[in-house]
């Protein structure tokens, strides 16, 4: 149990920022999952737009307003438009009986989980130093 405590250190009561962050992050994460998991390409594109909006919100939360505006301008407007056009232009070929994913899905998930885990561990090991610096700030 100590290890779990160490790995997932959560403060007991969220602050206002935290209260904003949690729904925003959940929205973003769910949209991100939809992007890769939804079988319909159009839904993917819509979920991507949602994700991008969420990320823009995160920027704003991090006091990077200019970036948030740039994100919306570049990503949500232009890239989304491009992707939508591309989907529409190549449409017709994508509605077959074949799987949406290729054969290496299992391997890829394993690899990603491991990478995520390692990243997590890195983060945990680095946290104490960061916390110190934040505390100083």
């Amino acid at each position, binding site marked *: 149990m100590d290890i779990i405590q160490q790995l997932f250190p959560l403060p007991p009561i969220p602050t206002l920022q935290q209260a904003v962050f949690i729904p925003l992050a959940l929205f973003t994460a769910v949209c991100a999952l939809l992007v890769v998991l939804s079988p319909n390409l159009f839904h993917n594109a819509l979920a991507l737009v949602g994700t991008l909006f969420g990320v823009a919100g995160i920027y704003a939360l991090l006091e990077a307003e200019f970036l948030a505006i740039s994100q919306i301008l570049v990503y949500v407007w232009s890239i989304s438009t491009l992707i939508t056009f591309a989907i529409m232009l190549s449409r017709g070929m994508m509605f077959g009986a074949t799987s949406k994913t290729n054969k*290496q899905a299992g*391997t890829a998930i394993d690899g990603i989980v*491991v*990478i995520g885990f390692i990243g997590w*561990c*890195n983060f945990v090991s680095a946290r104490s130093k960061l916390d110190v610096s934040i505390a100083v700030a």
Partner: protein
Amino acid sequence: MQGFLNLAWLVPVPTFLAFAAIVLFANRNKTVSALIAIGGAVLSFLLSWPIAFSAFTADHFGQHPVEAQLFSIPTGTSDLWIGYQVDPANALMLFMSSFLLVMIFIYASGYMTFPAHLSPATYPIAAAQGKDPRYSRFMAYISLFATGMMGLVVSNSLLTFFIFWEIMGLCSYLLIGFWYEKKSAQAASIKAFMTTRVGDVFMLVGLMFLYIHSQSGNLLFSDILSAENLHHLATLSVTVPLINVTVPWVAPIAILIFFGTVGKSAQFPLHVWLPDAMEGPTPVSAMIHAATMVSAGVFLLVRMFPLFATAGEVAPGTMHFVAFIGAFTALFASTIAIAQWDIKRVLAYSTISQLGYMVAAIGIGAYVPALFHLITHAFFKALLFLGSGSVIHGVEHGLHHVHEHGHHDEPAPGGEHGGKEGHTPTEAAGHGHTGLVIHRKDGDLNLEDPQDMRNMGGLLSRMPRTGWTFIIGGLALSGFPLTAGFWSKDEILGNAWGGGNTLVFGALVISAFLTAFYTARQIGLTFLGKPRTEMAKHAPESVPSMTWPLILITPFALLLGFIGTPWGNWIEGFMEPYIEHLEFHALHVEFSFIPMLVSIVVAVGGLVAGYYVYGQGLAEGQVDPLRNWLGPLWLVFHNKYWIDEFYKGTVVAFSHWLSKVLYWFDDLWVIDPIVDGIGQLGVWLARLAAEFDRLVVDGLVNLAGWLSNRAGGILRNTQDGQVQVYLLLLVVSMTVWLLLKALPIFLKLV
């Protein structure tokens, strides 16, 4: 005239060229072959006689014999020198053999008619020509033989002497077996070859010892027979193994070389081949077995006489042995000769006996008489052989005549007879010598055998030239006073008497008596009295090419002895300087009337006795009177002391047994199984190696290839062009790298 002496090396060349020309070019044409052969012999003769006579006429020729080297064959560290020499001894040989060879060649060209034992149907062309189917081959052989003889005579080293000696041995084999369709001829040729081989091997061993122990390091006569070298050999002693006697080297060398003579000149233990060799055509008998080849054996003794003389001085047993062999052979062969029926076999034993005379003469140190008898004997024995050939030929013709015209005492089968007159000679010849054989108290008699003297008789009137020349030759052989044989035989007997060799003298005297007796018997049975058969009645005189040689040889048989009379001994004077030149001691005796009287008495006595018994020939069917007088002894003589049977039972049987044992040893039991086993082992090892190669070596190579292939097969999957696979690989690699990076953290956490 002296210039001719340096041409001596040319003497063997024409006959050799004739041989080559016949073999290579002229073998299709019998007449041309004969002309080439005779031409070669005549050229050789035309070279030899000037050489011989320039030697005869030169002053003290023996003091400065001609000797020169032509060229050398390098043999390792030494050289084999090929050269020639002319000295009194071989001048006499050149004189004798070149003349006789020409005579015999001419005679042979007439003699070699279609032989009776062949079927004319097999050789129609030769039968139509009336000549032997292998006439050209015969001419080639005798030319090669003449090369061997002349080369032997002029050679100046013992080694070249031996080479030519062996060439003659080869030709002898080829010529004795010339009518190889006859089983007896085959057997005789092999017998002659093998028997002389025994002597030649001993001689070769002697040659090797001589070469090793001589100071000069070569076998030139001038070197090995020099006084210093002989002295060296006489002082060098050796212990002979087995008998454990220490003697000077010169004695075993002399004995070993003497065995060469024993083989070639048909002396006692090895004499058996010569009578059988009469299976060859008669010119061959005359040439090889009377005039030249067998004389070569004695000529070897004459050549090597200084060696023998030295051996006799330091080890007297050597010369005693030679004398014993010679005297014994002379007596032994002459006893056999008195009980033979075959006209040529009588002469063959006579030859053995006369050669024994010469060997005995050498053995008692009578150098010049041996050479003298060698020369005279060659003439009258060649004459006798050629005469006997003429007789056989005539009787054979008589046989043909009888076959063609039928037996006179048989009733002619009526009118049909006229139609059968036209029998071709070829058909008649087809009968061969397959007449009725009757058993008589004095040996079996084939009624159609043209060589059996019991089938002859009274031929003198039918064949006067042959008959008279044969009688002259016979008188010379038996030593009738004033003929050639008388003088030379008298010389030997005189030397034996004067040298005190009583035993030798006695043996030679008895054999001289027997010689005269069997000569008279032969003449009586053949030429005197009345014909005993139809074929003898119809025997014609031979063709001129056969009778002229007889006539030409006759003067020599009569008169040649006058070169060696006790009163004006030209040959003694001719040889004397040579003996001085070579510095050896030859027996020299004062003339005595006793041996001469004895010689005259035994010769004339033998002739008279023979004439008394056989002078009127025999009646038809009459048994030889000697058979009754001598009883079983006659059978001993007639069966040649059963020496052949003895050899057959011992030496030949042992050889057969040994060859059988060796065959078993080699082919069945030991050698072949071992060789096979080694072969099998090799195959087995090879299979093993092949398996090893296939499994291990190839396996390794294939494994490497297989690994490369598999690795390529695996790795090529990563290069499949799928972008996402590349990406995944990237991710996996990153994962592994991060895992390694994170390892310390995990350890810390745990």
